[in-house]
C-alpha cells in the first residue's frame, strides 16, 4: 500500500507546474482577529515564520490555540488581519481571489480532520477533481487516478460514495486527492483526529510517504506525540503566539 505512485507529468503544455516545484512559505508579523470575536484576544499575534521548501513541520497546541487558523493562512484559505503571508516570495495580499485559487489548485494540497470529500462524487471522481481543475488530459488523469487508488489500496472502492466508506478510507481518499496534482506543499489539519490509533498510524505513514517522502513540504497540525518525534521541526502555538520553535524531539 505504501509504495508511492510515480510522479507523472500530466495534462496540458503548462502541466509542468503540476509537478512539485519547490516553494517556500513565509509569515511576516502575521496577526489574525476574527470580526465576530469582539473583545476576544487575537487568534494569532505577530507570527514570523520561514518554511523552506521540503520542510517537515508539525504545529502543536491546545484546542483553540490557533493551529487551524495558521494552517488556513499557509494554505491561502484566509487572509491575515495584519502582516503578510508569502508563497514562493509573493505576498498573498497582492493576489486576487482568482490568483489565490490558482495557488491552492496548483501548489497546495490540503487534508482536513473531517475529510471534506465531496459527498456527491464517487471516490474516483473526488480524485479527478484536482486533476481536471489543473487541466489534465482525461487519459493521463485516469492513469493518475488509477495509480493513486492502487497506492492507497482503494481500487475496490473507486465507485463508492464517501458516505459508504469508513473514516480511515475517507481520509486515505482525502490524502490521495491532496497529492493528486503533485502540489509542492501538503498541509494536514489534525488528519488523525477522528480516527482510531491503528488507522491513525496508517494515515500518518501515508502522509509522510507521499508528503515529505516525495520531497514535498509537509505541514501538519496534530496532538500526536509520535508525529512530533518524526518531524524536522515542531512549533508550539499558545495564546496566539509561536512560543517555541524546537528541532525534532519531545516537546515539553
Amino acid at each position, binding site marked *: 500500500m505504501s509504495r508511492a505512485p510515480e510522479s507523472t507529468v500530466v495534462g496540458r503544455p503548462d502541466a509542468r507546474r503540476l509537478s512539485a516545484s519547490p516553494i517556500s512559505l513565509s509569515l511576516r508579523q502575521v496577526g489574525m482577529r476574527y470580526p465576530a470575536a469582539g473583545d476576544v484576544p487575537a487568534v494569532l499575534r505577530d507570527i514570523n515564520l520561514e518554511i523552506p521548501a521540503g520542510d517537515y513541520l508539525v504545529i502543536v497546541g491546545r484546542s483553540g490555540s490557533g493551529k487551524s487558523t495558521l494552517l*488556513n493562512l499557509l494554505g491561502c484559505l484566509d487572509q491575515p488581519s495584519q502582516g503578510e503571508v508569502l508563497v514562493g516570495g509573493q505576498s498573498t495580499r497582492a493576489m486576487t*481571489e482568482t490568483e489565490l485559487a490558482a495557488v*491552492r489548485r*496548483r501548489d497546495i494540497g490540503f487534508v482536513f480532520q473531517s475529510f*471534506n470529500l*465531496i459527498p*456527491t462524487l464517487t471516490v474516483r471522481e473526488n480524485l479527478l477533481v484536482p486533476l481536471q481543475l489543473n487541466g489534465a488530459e482525461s487519459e493521463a488523469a485516469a492513469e493518475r487516478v488509477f495509480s493513486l487508488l492502487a497506492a492507497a489500496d482503494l481500487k475496490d472502492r473507486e465507485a463508492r460514495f464517501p458516505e459508504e466508506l469508513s473514516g480511515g478510507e475517507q481520509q486515505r481518499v482525502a490524502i490521495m*486527492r491532496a497529492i493528486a496534482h503533485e502540489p509542492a506543499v501538503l498541509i494536514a489539519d489534525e488528519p488523525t483526529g477522528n480516527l482510531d490509533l491503528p488507522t491513525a498510524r496508517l494515515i500518518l505513514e501515508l502522509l509522510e510517504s507521499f508528503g515529505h517522502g516525495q520531497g514535498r513540504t509537509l505541514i501538519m497540525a496534530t496532538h500526536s506525540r509520535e508525529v512530533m518525534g518524526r518531524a524536522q521541526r515542531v512549533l508550539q502555538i499558545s495564546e496566539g503566539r509561536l512560543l517555541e520553535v524546537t528541532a525534532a524531539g519531545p516537546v515539553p
Partner: protein
Amino acid sequence: MTAAAVNRSLLLLAGLRFYLRHPGQLGLTVAGIALGVATVVAIDLAAYSSGQAFEASTRLFRGQATHEISRPGDSLPDDLLARVRRDYGIAMSAPTVEGRLRLAVEPRRSISLIGIDPLSAARVGGATAAFAPGASNFAGLMTQPGAVLISAAVAQELGVETGDELKLLDGGGESLSIIGQVPGESGERYLLADIATAQEILQRTGQLTRIDLRLTADQAGLLTSQLRQEGLQLRPVAATLGQVDAMTRSFRINLQALSLLALLVGAFLVFSTVSFSVVRRREMFGLFRSLGARRREVLQLVLTEIVVLAAAGVALGLLGGIVLGSGLVSLVLRTIGDLYLSTSVDYFGVSLPLLLKAALIGFGASLGAAAWPAIEAARAPPRRAMLRAYLERQGRQAAGSRLLLSVALACAAAVLLLFTRELRLAFVGIFMVLIAAAVAAPPLVQFSMRGLAAASTWLPLSYAARSVAANLSRTGPAVAALMIAVATFSGVGLMIGSFRLSVDEWLSYSLDADVLVRPTDSRALAASGEEADLLAELRRLPGVMDLSLSRRRALPDGQGIATLLAVQPAVQGRWPQSEQPRARVLASLARPDQVLVSEPFARKRDVAEGDALSLLTPAGEREFSIAATFVDYSTDLGLVAMELGRYRQLFGDQQLDTIGVFTATGQTATVLAQVEDLADRRGDLRVTTSAFLRQLSLLVFDRTFTITQVLRLIAGLVAVIAVINALQAQRLDSRREIATLRALGFSPGQVLRLGEMQSLLLGTGAGVLAVPVGILMAWLLIVVVNRIAFGWSMVFVIDWWLVSQGVLLAAVAGLLAGWLPNRRSLRESPAVALRAD
C-alpha cells in the same frame, strides 16, 4: 415558573432567534402564507362583491314590489299598465324601461338608462334613494325635457355634477341635463329619467321593459294564469334574483375553484417554506432532544412558531387580498355584465365571514404544511436527527412509497373525473391529480438527476446533477411547489389558448356574413311591412351574393333563461358549426317540426339528437324533435335554433334583429360603403362588419379571462418564490462543500458556474416535469370542467411555445433565484465556512 415552562420558552426563544438571524427565511415563509391567503381573499371578495352588487342592482327600483310582469326577450306594450290597473284593480304598479347608451365623454363603456314613473315608483316604494329628502330634484324629471338624475358612482367616474350636460354618442347626439345625483352604496352605474324621456332617448316609445307590482297571493294567482295566455310572464322578484344567481352559478363556481387552485399552489409554497425552515434546523432539534427535550416539546415548538408566522402571513394576506380584490372585482363585474346581464355596477364590499374563512384557511394550510416536517423532527431519535445522511437515506427509502402513493392518488382522481357530473367534484379530481404530481415530483427529479449524472461524462455536470439529487431532502417540497406553480402557469395558459382558438373558430361560423345590418327599431320595420323592400334593396346592391336573417328572443319554455334563435341561414354561409354535414343540418332545420340545440343546452337539459323538446307558442304547447347539436359559445345558458319562417308562423313575431350580408370575394369594402349609404338614407339601420364584431368578441373573451391570467401571474410568482427557497436551501446545504471546492483550488468563477448549473438543473428539472402535468391539467379543464360547467366542447391544442414558456419560466426563475445565493456563497472565506461546520 416550572422547569417545563422554562424549557419551552427557551426552545421558543431559540426558534425565534433562528428566524431573526435569517430574515430571508422569515420573509419567504410569511410571503408564502400571505400570497396564498391574499389570492383566496381577493377572488372570494370579488365574487362576493359582484353578487352583492347585482342583488342591490336588481332590487334598486323594485322597492317593496313582490312581482314583476315581463316578456322574456321582448318588451311590453305600455298600455298594459293601464289594463293591469283598470282590469285587475292593482294600483301598486310601476312601469320601468331600461336600456343602454353611450356617452360622448366615455365612449368605451355603455351605461344603463332607467326610465321610471316617479309617482308610481313611490307607490311601490321603489327608488327610495332618489326620493330621499334633499337627494335630488325629483320633480324636475317630469317637467324638464332631457332631465336625468345621475348615480353617484357615474358622477364620480365622469367627474360631472348637477347642472352639467351629457352628450349622447348614439342616436342624434342629443344632450341630457343632470338635475341631481342619487347616492348609492353599491356603486350602481346608471342614469335615471322619467319614463317618457327614457323611451324617447332609447327609441322605445310605447314600450316597457317590465312592470313592478305589489301583490297579495290571491292577486298573484289570478294574474299568473291570465297573463300567461297573452305570452306574458308574472314572476316573483325573488325569482329574478334567483335567475341572476342561476345564470352566474357556473361562473362563480369557476371563480371559487380558481381561488382554491391558487390556494393549493400557495399551500405548496407554504409547505415548502415551512418544511425548509424545519429541515434546516434538524440538527438543532436533535440537540434539544439530546439535551432531554421531549418529542411533544419539539412538536409544540415547531407548531407554535408556525402559528406566529401564520398570524403575520394571514394578516398581510388579508390586507393584500383586499387590495387585490378591489382590483379584481371590476373585472368580475364587467365579465358578468358582458356575459350574463345588461346592468353594470361597480361595488366592492368586505365580508367579515369571508375574511375569517380565508384566515382559517391560511392557518390550516400553514399548520397542515408544517405538521409532517414537525412530526418528523420530533420523531427522529436525537442522534439521527443530527445526521444529514439519515435524512437522505430516509428520503431514498421513501421514494418508492411516494411514487406508489402518487399512483394511487392519480387512479382515484381518474375514477372521480371519469364518472362525476358535479363541478365541485371535478375540481376535487383535478386537485388530486396535482397533489399526486407534487408527491411524485421530488423522487422523479431525483431519478432524472441521477440518470443525468450517470450519463454525463463531464464531471461538473454530473457533480451538479448529483448535488441537486442529493439536496432533495431539503429542496423536495420547494421542487414540488415549483412544479405545481409552473404546471398551473402552463395548464391554465393552454386552456385559455385552446378556448380562444375554439371561440375564434366558432366566430368564423357564427359571424359568417361579411357585413351585418341591424334595424334600430325592428318593431317599426316589421310593422310597416318594409322588411321585404329593405331585403330586396340589399340584394340588389352590386357585390351582394346572399343574405341571412335572424331573430333572438328568450326561449318560451317557462324558464326564460335559454335563448331561441330564429334563423334563415345563407346558402353560402358556414353556420351552424356541427359534427354533421351542413347540408344535412340545414335540411333538417327546414322541416317544420325540427330544431337544433346548442351543446350547453343539450348538456344542461340532458337531451340529445332525436329527443323531443316542448316549446310554448301563442297557439299552445308545440313539440319539436332535436335534429342536431351545434357549437355555440355565445351563452352557456343554452340556445335553440329554429327556421325563421316557421318561427314567424308559430309566434307571429315578424321582427328581425340582424341581417347578414354575404359579399363576393374582395367586394366587402365596396358593399360596406353602399350599405352605409343606404343606412344613412334610411336612418333606421346600424351597420357593422363581422370582422369588427369578431375582434370585439375576442376582446370580451380576453377581458373575461383577465382574472384567470391574474392567477397565472400569481402562479408564476409562487414559482419564483419556491425556487428561491429551494436554492437557498441548496446553497446553505452546500456551504461546506463550496468551501472544500475552493480549498481544492476552484476559482470564484468556477464555483459560480457550478452553482448556476445547479440552479438551472433544479429549475429546468421541475419545469420539465411540469410539462406533462400542465398539459394534463389543461386537458382536464377543457374536457371535464368546461363540459360540466358550461357544456362547451373545445378543441385541445398544445401550444408548445406556451409550454416551453413554463419550462423557461422555471429555468430562468432558477437562474435568477440562484443569482444572490450563488454570489453570497463566494463572499465567505472558505476557512470560515469550513470552521463553521
